[in-house]
């Protein structure tokens, strides 16, 4: 059984016990434990079930590479699925549940898949479930989905918060082991701004466990000194529990800080995502030990050799009482020594190499531990727990030579450098045949904005596995100034590549050799993929799902590549690797979202009168990032009733509209007139000072993009009104043409949208309101329709535009934004005796539709040209050029047979559904019903007491009086007559009084 040792444990604090629950069972650990260490200390070897066959699975690794031991962590609004126990710190009150089983971890019905495994090889689902056809969606797929899927779904809204932070550095060092510390020290001493980040809660990495000496002292002490030195330097920032998750273009690094995962609910953000611009990134990310592929290598109790060592040395946990070490290299002998040092039994070291020499094996033999040369494991015995191993000759086919009882198998197939950060942005790898590893090719690094190398690796991540080499490599990677730390340690003999154990294993054994533990991909699966022609490494990965689990193949990739290469009779480098994608280990989506949640999910733009609207019951409509009142509901009113009231009141008394969101762009300069003549379809240069003119704007592809009233403010300045949504876009459009095409024209633009609040005072009594405010002559004579004047109104500095989007007598008054609310309130007060009421965007729409005015975004949709809308009067025939003119001469746009704007009136007075299409005879070549028009705007007119609509109809203006069929919902057809689009006050008398 696994248990806590009575002494040792360099990371735990035995004076600080913590209690936690696993699957409801109370357990005890120590502060400093990972959850993996705590579980093992409580003899909880079985921690989960695999993805496909629901095999019982235990802890394999001690860090981020763990493929099996994923749990659901926390409860309620703090529940999180798929959390690795090896990277989870144990804290008081922690609760964890095991995953992917039913009804329980010990007795899982899904394990029947394991017995059927022979019928469920890689890609079986591509060959099955073909009949009957509906069964895939309704029977097979739900079954597959339910049995896959791993963790449970969080059910409640997240109780935690997340934040993001920004940082800049000359050098970011990812990894706080001895390589990272050396790199950081070297660069910091050379004066660089350094950020040093370590994903675990401790500095030092593996070196203190492995026991080498650095600069004449124990690694532990050296690490302590190095950390102290770095902490004393002003140009160094250090963070624990912070993983560099990805390296992106131009030196952009993301780091994921798990601020409060181990102290949930303490008020701090749970995670902090660092967004760092780095001059250079050094990946001192270490290496990951590879499993060996022998039959039964997934049974709980089979662990990586270095992980066994970590548990013993770091946390004083013995994974079992009697261990067997199986290896193809010297490093695993350190595990045998660590176990022996802890007083545990090592039954044997099984070494695949035909002859074993070297310092470490000698030390092991000196302890009296059996070392078997040229041997391998034929098969691991046991089901939910290892009970022993059968030994065979590595060169043979698996004939059992002897059996050894044990409850732990510590395996080591060699090491793979962690090259993820190097590779994320294009760094290339080379195959190192001696160490059987892909390591970074220093000649082909990822490059930055100037083509310079933007990343390097240091230490084991470079492929340097001996301590002395690690330090030298890290020192050089960081610039190599000063002296590199020195190390001494035992010399290690070469490893022997072992991809299958035993070498001649038959299919029955290979069907029990796991490559990808979590996704249940075995040696036999990869060989099947190769046999079936899925020869590319990407094909094999996707066909078998090798390396696609939540560990992203950290343990399985190289072993899988080797098996595939062997099956294809080619060298491993010819097979190549799959692509490394960020993040290195999964990061919370919450941290990616950061603070942008709820009300501040996106910026919210408010006019100066926003709070007043709110207080008056505004029902809001989002318009871009603005909020505009859709209508003002009075108690007992529906929105529709409110809109009707607002329309009728505006037509009979006064309506007040907050028009502040309308774009207001000042265009000024000697060439401003010439510029506006290019921008608008009409002529603006001839507009007299003090006059207003309606204008249409197209892009150079001919389509109508915006409209609004242009005002000649002075000899050299024009004010261009745009739509609410268009303000920023049109300002950018103007600047684009000014800066990139007509850069020698003397024009300045300024977007004044937010500098002015604007109030539309609309209705037959509008003038009375202004006269009551007083200060300006707003009479018909002094300020006729489509003119402009400046002055004071009720003491406010005001720009008054006599323009109308409703067909009523109307003034739009702009005042400085800071005075917007006061002016609005003054208007409301002054208007009270005349029946003034505010109105919202929907009433605005009804009023303009009654008048047949177009609305950008309703009558236009990016496919409409001004000629379609009967706006020929606003298009100059005389101008040689304007944006869109040439485009509108193209054959399709000049085609007389286009859909054009008309009014539509239902025969029964009902409101035509928005977007409904008018059908034509027959079907087109694709069998689709032909159409001849569509509804673009449609409302109930409370004034006319009937439905009114506008639409685009094929040759519409020439077909007045014709009746069209509009099929609508539930098979009904609404008939509507083509009419003039001006439904109210056709001669425009009301606006001109």
């Amino acid at each position, binding site marked *: 059984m696994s248990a806590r040792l009575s002494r040792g444990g360099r990371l735990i604090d035995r004076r600080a016990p913590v209690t936690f629950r696993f699957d409801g069972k109370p357990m005890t650990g120590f502060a400093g434990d990972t959850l993996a260490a705590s579980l093992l200390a409580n003899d909880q070897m079985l921690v989960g079930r695999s993805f496909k066959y629901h095999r019982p699975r235990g802890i394999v690794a001690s860090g981020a590479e763990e493929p099996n031991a994923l749990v659901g962590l926390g409860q309620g609004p703090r529940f999180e699925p798929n959390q690795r126990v090896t990277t989870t710190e144990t804290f008081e009150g922690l609760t964890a549940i095991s995953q992917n089983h039913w009804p329980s971890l010990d007795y899982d019905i899904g394990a029947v898949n394991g017995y059927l495994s022979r019928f469920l090889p890689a890609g079986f689902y591509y060959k099955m479930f073909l009949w009957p056809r509906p069964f895939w*969606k309704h029977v097979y797929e739900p079954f597959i989905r339910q049995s896959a899927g791993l963790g449970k779904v969080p059910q409640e809204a997240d109780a935690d918060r997340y934040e993001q932070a920004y940082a800049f550095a000359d050098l970011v060092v990812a990894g706080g082991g001895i390589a990272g510390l050396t790199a950081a020290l070297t660069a910091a001493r050379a004066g660089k701004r350094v950020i040093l980040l370590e994903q675990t809660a401790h500095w030092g990495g593996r070196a203190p466990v492995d026991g080498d000496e650095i600069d004449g002292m124990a690694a532990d002490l050296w690490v302590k000194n190095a950390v102290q030195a770095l902490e004393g330097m002003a140009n160094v920032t250090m963070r624990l529990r912070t993983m560099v998750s990805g390296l992106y*273009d131009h030196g952009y690094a993301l780091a994921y800080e798990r601020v409060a995962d181990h102290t949930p609910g303490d008020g701090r953000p749970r995670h902090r995502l660092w967004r760092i611009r780095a001059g250079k990134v050094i990946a001192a990310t270490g290496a990951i030990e590879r499993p060996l592929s022998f039959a039964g290598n997934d049974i709980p109790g089979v662990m990586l050799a270095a992980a066994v060592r970590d548990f013993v040395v770091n946390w004083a946990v013995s994974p079992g009482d009697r261990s067997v070490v199986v290896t193809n290299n010297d490093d695993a002998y350190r595990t045998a020594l660590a176990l022996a040092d802890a007083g545990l039994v090592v039954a044997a070291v099984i070494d695949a190499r035909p002859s074993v020499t070297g310092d470490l094996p000698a030390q092991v033999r000196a302890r009296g531990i059996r070392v078997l040369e040229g041997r391998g494991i034929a098969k691991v015995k046991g089901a939910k727990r290892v009970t022993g191993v059968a030994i065979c000759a590595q060169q043979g086919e698996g004939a059992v030579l002897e059996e050894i009882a044990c409850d732990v198998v510590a395996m080591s197939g060699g090491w793979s450098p962690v090259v993820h950060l190097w590779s994320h942005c294009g760094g290339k790898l080379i195959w190192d045949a001696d160490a059987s590893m892909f390591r970074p090719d220093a000649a082909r690094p990822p490059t930055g904005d100037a083509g310079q190398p933007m990343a390097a690796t240091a230490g084991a991540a470079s492929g340097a596995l001996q301590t002395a080499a690690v330090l030298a490599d890290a020192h050089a990677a960081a610039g190599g100034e000063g002296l590199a730390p020195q190390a001494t340690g035992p010399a290690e003999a070469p490893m022997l590549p072992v991809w299958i154990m035993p070498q001649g294993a038959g299919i029955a054994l290979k069907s029990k050799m796991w490559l990808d533990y979590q996704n249940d991909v075995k040696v036999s699966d990869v060989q099947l993929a190769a046999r079936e022609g899925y020869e590319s490494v990407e094909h094999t990965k996707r066909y078998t799902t090798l390396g696609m689990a939540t560990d992203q193949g950290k343990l399985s990739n190289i072993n899988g590549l080797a098996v595939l290469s062997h099956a294809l009779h080619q060298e491993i480098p010819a097979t190549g690797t799959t692509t490394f994608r960020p*993040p290195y280990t999964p990061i919370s989506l919450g941290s990616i979202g950061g603070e942008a949640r709820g009300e501040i*999910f996106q910026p919210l733009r408010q006019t100066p009168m926003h709070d007043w609207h709110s207080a008056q019951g505004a029902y809001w409509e989002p318009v871009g990032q603005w909020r505009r009142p859709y209508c003002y509901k009075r108690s007992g009113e529906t929105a529709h009733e409110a809109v009707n009231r607002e329309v009728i009141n505006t037509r009979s008394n006064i309506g007040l509209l907050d028009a502040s969101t309308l774009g207001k762009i000042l265009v000024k300069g000697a060439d401003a007139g010439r510029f506006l003549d290019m921008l608008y379809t009409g002529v603006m240069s001839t507009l007299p000072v003090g006059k207003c003119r309606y204008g249409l704007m197209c892009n150079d592809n001919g389509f109508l993009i915006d409209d609004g009233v242009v005002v000649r403010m002075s000899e050299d300045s024009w004010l261009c009104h745009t739509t609410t949504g268009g303000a920023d876009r049109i300002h950018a459009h103007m600047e684009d043409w000014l800066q990139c095409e007509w850069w020698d024209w003397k024009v300045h633009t300024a977007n004044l949208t937010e500098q002015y609040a604007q109030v539309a005072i609309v209705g037959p009594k509008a003038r009375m309101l202004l006269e009551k405010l007083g200060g300006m002559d707003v009479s018909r004579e002094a300020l006729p329709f489509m003119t402009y004047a400046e002055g004071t109104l009720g003491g406010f500095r005001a720009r008054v535009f006599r323009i109308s989007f409703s067909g009523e007598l109307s003034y739009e008054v702009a005042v400085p934004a800071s005075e917007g609310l006061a002016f609005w309130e003054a208007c409301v007060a002054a208007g009270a005796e005349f029946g003034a009421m505010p109105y919202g965007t929907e009433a605005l729409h009804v009023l303009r539709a009654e008048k047949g005015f177009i609305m950008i975004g309703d009558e236009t949709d990016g496919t409409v040209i001004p000629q379609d809308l009967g706006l020929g009067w606003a298009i100059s025939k005389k101008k040689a050029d304007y944006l869109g003119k040439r485009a509108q001469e193209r054959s*399709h746009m000049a085609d007389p047979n286009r859909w054009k704007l008309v009014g539509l009136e239902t025969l029964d007075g009902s409101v035509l559904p928005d977007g409904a299409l008018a059908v034509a005879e027959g079907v087109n070549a694709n069998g689709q019903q032909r159409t001849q028009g569509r509804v673009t705007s449609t409302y109930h007119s409370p004034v006319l007491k009937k439905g009114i609509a506008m639409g685009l109809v094929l040759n519409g203006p020439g077909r007045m009086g014709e009746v069209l069929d509009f099929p609508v919902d539930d098979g009904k057809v609404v008939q509507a007559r083509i009419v003039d689009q001006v439904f109210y006050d056709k001669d425009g008398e009301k606006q001109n009084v």
Partner: protein
Amino acid sequence: MTRYSVFAVAREALRWHSGWERAWKSPAPKKKYDVVIVGAGGHGLATAYYLGKNHGIRNVAVIEKGWLGGGNTGRNTTIIRSNYLQDPSAAIYEKARSLYENLSQDLNYNVMFSPRGLLMLAQTHHEVRGYRRTVYANNLQGVTTEWIEPAKVKELVPIMNIEGPRYPVLGALYQARGGTARHDAVAWGYARACSAMGMDIIQQCEVTGVRTLNGQVQGIDTTRGAIDCAKLAIVVAGHSSVLAEMSGFRLPIESMALQALVSEPIKPCMDVVVMANTVHGYMSQSDKGEMVIGGGTDGFNNYTQRGSWQHVEETTRALIETFPMLSRLKMLRQWGGIVDMTGDRSPILSKTSVGGIFVNCGWGTGGFKAIPGSGWAMAELVAKGEPGPLAAEFGLDRFKEGRFIDESVAAGVAH
């Protein structure tokens, strides 16, 4: 070709699966083919398949620079829908969708088409109008869609928050027979079927030049030698401009990176596909349990298939607003795919200025869903030399005539 079935799997199980044949052969290129298709992605392979199946043209090679299905076919978010606004779009996407319905049986390869339903959320009044318009259009186009109210949205997707503080859900455009399929399997299934018809699929073979004489195609040069052909189909999303340059013409295309990501797998919690265009995100749950999330396109020309960051962030933020439980899931992997963006964001299936060269490109962010229909229409174009009705409106001439097919108008982005 051994037919796949449950019986075949059982039979093979008894002999440890030692008898399975190659899914597709790996031949050396011949000197000459009737038709050479450049690009062994879904569209290229489907073109080959329907050339054989519908037009009896089987002396066909499909040339692939890397591994088949390795471009956007293997990088997309697998959404299938046909709820497009404009008639030509609805026609070709609905053709594709209807072919997907039977594709597993047709190819004898389970592509896992899962018509689980697809929702496009309306979160502004403008979107409500746009989607209602689309429903009317779809009903006349023979595409079955409906407008559904927020309560029905919530019923279909219980994990959704329909009352978000900024963009509450006002309803949705629902296509019940939209869904997803297994993207790799589509390429593999077509490849297997093409190979069985005697067509050559030639991987690891890069085109280095296009040979023309008097305005007529003669053949191509490749890293595996010269290949003559009577007709050449260029079906290389992401690299269309590069092949066009070799052929001597330019296309109205820019290559950009589209961003996507997946979460770690969780138990089934969302049975439909959800697209939220106001906030720029779309999501489905794969059969493995991963939440598959698509985001926006970087706006600059880019041939690196790398994940970037800002769209991932925007999309994730948006989706957390709509699906609050997401914030406690983790991002497992992110990546980029290179998409062809055309001048009107609609695809091109067209003859070119060079005789015998045809292009199929410009599917932008929406190519996967179109694969069977695109292959069907492209095969007809290549076989007959003139477009059939499905391809007729997608010719290059539209850019000269100003006759665009613009789908952005209904706020429906082309994912």
